[in-house]
Every structure is written in C-alpha cells, then in structure tokens.
C-alpha cells in the first residue's frame, strides 16, 4: 500500500469529519402532536419502580408512554444539551434540584393551578412549573448493636461531637444530601453551616457513593450510623424478602424542625413543547391521583404528597415530622450548597 495514495484519503476523511462536526444546525423542532395518545417521558427515577405504574396509566387512558430512563443528574445535563429540540415531553426527576436546574433553563411550561394546588406549597415550584410527586424524609439510620437508643442524637448537629467520631456515613454527591446542606444553610446561616460540615468531615465522617451502600453497611454493622433518606430501608428489606422492621438497621427521626429532619421531593415537570398537550397533562394528573400516590407509599415506601393517600407502614406520619421550610427550587441556593460541600472536603 503506497503511503502517498493513502494520505489524501485519510486527510479527506478527517477533514470531512471536522466539517460535519462544525456545520451547526438548522431544521425545525421535533413535532409533538397534541392529543396523539403518546408521550415521551424522561425518567430520572428507576425503571423497576416507575414502569409498573406507567403500565397501569397506559391501560387506563390508552396513552402510550415512551419512557427513557437514566440518572436524574445526567438527564438534566442531557435536557440542557438538547434544549428546545428535546424529544422529551415530561421529566420525572429524583430530586428537586434537577427540576430546578431544568426550570432555570426555561424549559418547563407552567402547570395548571388545579393540578399544583393538590400539593402543599413547600413541595412544588414557586412559579408553578414543577410539582412534587412524593416526599422523602432525611433520617439517621443506625445499628442498635452499635448505638444505644439512649445515645441517639436529638439534632443532626450532635453528630460532630467526639462520641460520633468515625461513626457516621454520608453520601455527599447524593441530591438529598445537597438539599440537606441547603436546609442547614437556610436555617442557621452560612457561617454555622460551614462550621458544621467542616466539623463533620473532621469528625471522620465515612464517605459512601450512595444511600443504599450506607444502609447496607449499617445493617451489616460495618458502620454504626448514617444520614440517608427514609425509604432505602424498605428497598433493602424488599430485596431480602423481609419487612423493614426485621432488618438490623433502624431509623431515627431527628426532633421535628431540626435541619436533619428536612423533607425533599421527587417531582415532575412538563416541557414547553407539550404545554398544551392533554396527554402530558393526563400523566401529571395520574401521578398526583390516588392510585399512583398509594402505589408510591406501598411499593417504594415514600410519603404521598397529596392529602388522603395512606402513609408508608414503618415511619411516622409526614405531618408529624414538621420539616424545616426551605425553598427546594432555589438553584442559586443549590450552587452555594455545592460550593460549601466542596469546601468542607466531603467530595473530591
């Protein structure tokens, strides 16, 4: 093979690729037929949890749901990259921060007031562009063999004390942990929040990649306690074929009003291109309806956010938690929280 003949061919191929890559856009927006009885859903929530519910919805309404699953954070990045050419019509997210991030890009349409009105104001966007679907409480999961009931902390601030050195696991990259940081900042101010998280790190907080790891390790006695969302105990119990009460790991709820007792939501928003699509609206209504709300309480152990649905079995009622009031939607606040997490040294 003669080099002199190969070279121009490869050069042309590379040049072509470059041109192709640089030749930016044009073309119309993806067509969204209103009332075509299908919707494209981007789900940052797990398929195992969401699909059975979507199947019921499709059966009842005849609306087919094309669901795309991914991690909430990467889907938010994907939506931002797609912009107004996104095929997505509805975004179902694991936490409020991601919904806030997409909303800040101006990609959500306003939801009708009668839909959002079903949900308490603290669990939805102030501008009405997204609404919470389920609530999850922050808790301390602990192993009674390693932590005596009498020693359980009243406030999350107690965890920086010497009694807890090296004994508490956290998952700082988790969305709920970030919301918890926000709660501390809003309630106690920047200075105290910074002191607290730096102290938590200095107290040898054990870093884990996610909440499941924390609960598994606490249950196995590898670490005495951890800060997680309440429903992971249910998930792990389900996998082992037991009730949450039968696990070694137990839940401790901080004193009502304490930052450690904050409540976060998973939620849903409708993309602008489907602002008037009755199919998208029907899905939002379904998720806030009695059937879906009951499903979440029974199957995923989360708190329903709409009045009237039964609470999950092994936890105190949502109303009794008296979560500290913070604006889950405030992304500026989220950025400050993240800066704080980075500064505290809890993340790489």
């Amino acid at each position, binding site marked *: 093979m003669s080099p002199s003949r190969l070279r121009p061919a490869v050069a042309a191929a590379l040049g072509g690729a470059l041109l192709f*890559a640089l030749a930016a856009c044009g073309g119309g927006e993806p067509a969204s037929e209103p009332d075509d009885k299908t919707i*494209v859903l981007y789900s940052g929530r797990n398929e195992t949890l969401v699909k059975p519910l979507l199947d019921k919805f499709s059966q009842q309404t005849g609306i087919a749901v094309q669901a795309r699953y991914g991690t909430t954070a990467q889907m938010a990045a994907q939506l931002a*990259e797609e912009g107004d050419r996104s*095929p997505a019509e509805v975004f179902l997210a694991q936490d409020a921060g991601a919904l806030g991030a997409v909303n800040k890009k101006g990609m959500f349409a306003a939801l009708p007031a009668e839909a959002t009105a079903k949900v308490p104001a603290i669990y939805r966007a102030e501008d009405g562009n997204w609404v919470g679907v389920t609530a999850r409480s922050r808790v301390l999961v602990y192993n009674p063999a390693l932590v005596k009931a009498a020693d359980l902390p009243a406030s999350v601030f107690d965890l920086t004390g010497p009694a807890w050195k090296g004994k508490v696991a956290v998952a700082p990259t988790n969305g709920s942990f970030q919301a918890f940081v926000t709660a501390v900042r809003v309630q106690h101010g920047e200075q105290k929040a910074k002191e607290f998280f730096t102290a938590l790190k200095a107290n040898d907080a054990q870093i884990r990649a996610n909440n499941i790891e924390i609960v598994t390790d606490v249950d196995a006695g590898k670490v005495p306690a951890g800060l997680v969302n309440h429903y992971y105990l249910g998930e792990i119990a389900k996998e082992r074929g037991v009730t949450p009460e039968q696990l070694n790991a137990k839940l401790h709820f901080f004193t009502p009003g304490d930052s450690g007792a904050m409540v976060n939501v998973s939620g849903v928003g409708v993309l602008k291109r489907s602002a008037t699509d009755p199919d998208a609206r029907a899905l939002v209504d379904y998720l806030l309806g009695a059937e879906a709300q009951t499903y979440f309480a029974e199957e995923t152990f989360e708190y329903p956010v709409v009045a009237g649905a039964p609470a999950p079995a092994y936890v105190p009622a949502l109303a009794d938690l008296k979560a500290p009031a913070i604006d889950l939607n405030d992304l500026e606040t989220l950025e400050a929280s993240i800066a704080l997490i*980075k500064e505290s040294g809890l993340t*790489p």
Partner: protein
Amino acid sequence: MALLPLVYLLVRTAEAGAGRIAEELFTGRVAVLTARTVALAAVVTAACVVLGVGTAFLVGRTDLPGRRLFAVLGALPLAVPTYIAAFTWVSTLDGFTGFWASAVVLSLCSYPYVYLPVVAALDRADAAQEDVARSLGHNPWRTFRSVTLPQLRPAVAGGALLVALYVLSDFGAVALLRTDTFTAAIFTAFDLGFDRTGALVLATVLVALTTVLLVGEGATRRRDARYAAVGAGARRPHTRLRLGPARLPAALLLAVVAALALGVPALNLARRLAAGVSRPGSLPEIAAAAGNSLTVSAAGAALTLLLALPIGLLVARAPGPLAAGAEGLSYLSHALPGVVIGLSLVFFGVNVAYPLYQTRWLLTLAYAVLFLPLAVAAVSAAVAQAPPVLEDVARSLGRSPARVLATVTVPLTVPGIAAGAALVFLTCMKELPATLLLRPTGMDTLATELWTHTGVAAYAAAAPYAALLVALSAIPTWFLAARTGALASQEGTR
C-alpha cells in the same frame, strides 16, 4: 469522528469563559486529583505489564502445565466490567477501598489489554532469530531479553497505553472503591448541582494528560525497527523453555490471578442470586436485552474497524505527522469518560444529525469514537508484523495499490483485525454511560438492565444480567485467545 468530543469540549469550555476555567482548574484540588490519577494509571499500567507479559510468556513460551486453559483464563477478565468487579470485591472484603483497592481491581480487569497483544506477538515473532541467538551461545534468558523482548515492544507499549487510558476514563471501579480520580470528579460535578460546564472544563485536563501519555508512548517507538519475519518459508515452532521444578508454582500463580480476577466476582454474584428475592424480567425481556447488546456491540465493532483500518495502515506503513495525528486523535477521546463522549454526541445529534438522534446509528457512532484506539492498536500491530516486502513484490509484479491492499495486506493482517473487532465488541457490551444517554428510547441492553436493578438494591434480579453479560463476552474473548495462537500453539518442546 474522533474530533467530535474535542470540538464539543472546545465549544462548551469556550462558553465557560476564562475566569470560570481558571477558577475550576487552578486549584489545589485539581493538583491533588491529577497526581492521584497519574499515580493510579502508573501503578495499574506497571502491574498490567508484569501480569500481562508474564502470563503471555508462561503460556506462549514455556512447558507450563494446563497452558491452553491458562491461555483462555488470561483473556477472560476482559469480559468482567470493572463496575461489577469492584462491586463484588467491596462487598466480599470489608473496607476494601481506596487507592490500592482500585489499583488491584483495575489491574485484574485490564491486564488482558497487555496479555493479548503480547501473546499474539510472541507467536508471530520470528523463531529463526531466537534460534540464531541461542546457537551463538546466548542462554534462554539472554535470548529473551535481547531478541524476543525488543520484538514485543509495539505490543507491550500499545497494550500499556490502552491500560493507562482505560484507568484515566474509568468511573465504575473508582467510584465504588472510593478513590477520587479525575473521572470520578467529572461525574461528581454532574451530580453536584448538575454542573455541566464545570465537569467539561475538568475533562479538558484529561485530554491534556492523554496528550502527555501519547508523547511518552511515541518516544518509546524506534524508527526503522523491523518486526516482520521475512523469508524463512514454513513457520517453525518456538523453542519452549523448560520450567523444571518451577512448573507447579508457576501454574499455581496463574491460577491465583485467575481466581482473583474471575472467581471473586463469580462467587459473589452466585451468593447474591441465592440471597435475594427480586427476580429479573421475563425470559423474552432478558432475551431482548441480550439481543440488543449483541447487535449494537456488533455494529459498534464493525464501524470501529472500518474507521480503524485506514488509520492503522497509515500508522504502520506511512509513519509521519499525518499518521501520528490521526492516531493521536483517536486516542484522545478514549481517555474521556463515557458521559462526556455521550454528551458530545447528544450535541452532535441534536444540532447536526437530528434524524439519527436516539437511534442505534448514533449509539454505534459513539462506540466507534470511544473505542477506536482499541482497533487502531490491533490493526497497526498486525500490519507492522506483515512484511512490507511482500507488498513491494506484488506491486512490482504490476498489481494496483488497491489490489495489493485487498490481496496481500488485508489477508496478512486478518488475525489482528479480527482480534481488534473482538476486543471492541466486548468493550461495547460493557459500556454504560454513553449507552444511557444515546440509546433509542425504550431500548434496554444487558448493561442498562444491570444498572437498573442494582439501582434499587435488587441484586438477585441483577445477577442473571451480569452473568449473561460475562458469559456472552466470554465468546469473543475465547475467540481472541484462540486467534492469538496461544490455543493453537505448536507443541514442540525442546
């Protein structure tokens, strides 16, 4: 095509502005991450070279008992995704986390990147040269060092480069074993506040690190080195070294490596399957996921090979700035994490190739961009060992360059090309982040199913997908081992 991620990075980092870039990059944290990432890559690469060359030598050049079995076992760890290996290790051994844990798991998963090309090169190396050296009085060790080893240089360096790049881009293992590397930080940036820009600015550092690596690897290349056997007529078997009393310890050593790389994941998965009550989807669902994995991976391997062939030929036959540039570009994107490649193709799909967006085509393209170097390395190594003099002869006899390529060069390099295809295929099978971003809506693969089920702690449901993923990947791995000649090796022991 390999330029896409770089163009995308350029566009997005330019948006960030100089202030933001400086703020993200010039921090103590970035310095620490860089140091740790480089150290991890160095340790894992060194370990893989030792394990890979050692295994290849024992299998290819000694009278090791059970060497056919070990020839396959040496390649199989490639079928185990690092996220599965890490997950099973950390749940088997308490507190198995941190830098050295990551180094162990990554080494055990990636030493076949060195083993496979080296065992192939050992088989193809000219036996006559070694015989001459020995007839001139060199002992076996000296022969190996002064004659065989130099011939292995392209294979070792190419494999080592792939290992180093893999370590730079790996997220699965380092996340589970809690080692904060650059790629871990990039993923964290996405998770923390959905900070796309910050993540992409960080990714530019990986590109810089890769450039340094490439320059380093280039410096080890010797100009005008000849790796092909010429003349000699029939191929002769290599002399196998008698291990004597070291036979059993050597076999035991390889068995331990295999047990660590394959046994730990297998046992742990079996235990999880027995302990959990969750169940995977119906058989048709599992079959559909397996079918999707196989078809997209096969398409990915085919496209990657198509793109790699001209680059590989150019690198081996016409080294120069153009070849180096094309090869270097293909490597640059290989060190980027899958999520960055995925987003760059989302960007490309949405802005340029909208009809392809969220179709199998764009996913296939993503695989090609991600794994091009695997194929380029295999093709160029194979071409380098095919004697150019045969092409010259064909041309002097009046064949056109295209006919020479089709009738001489390609047939001579088919084993190398096939090995490259198998390597790309099984790497595609394991890929997760880019697949999640680019797959057609509703399409599940074995890797995405595995991710779905482990996401809700449904380990028993996840285990069959993991087992199937490893089992299906084992087929091309077996083929790789067979192609390298380690299996079909000549039995002449002298």
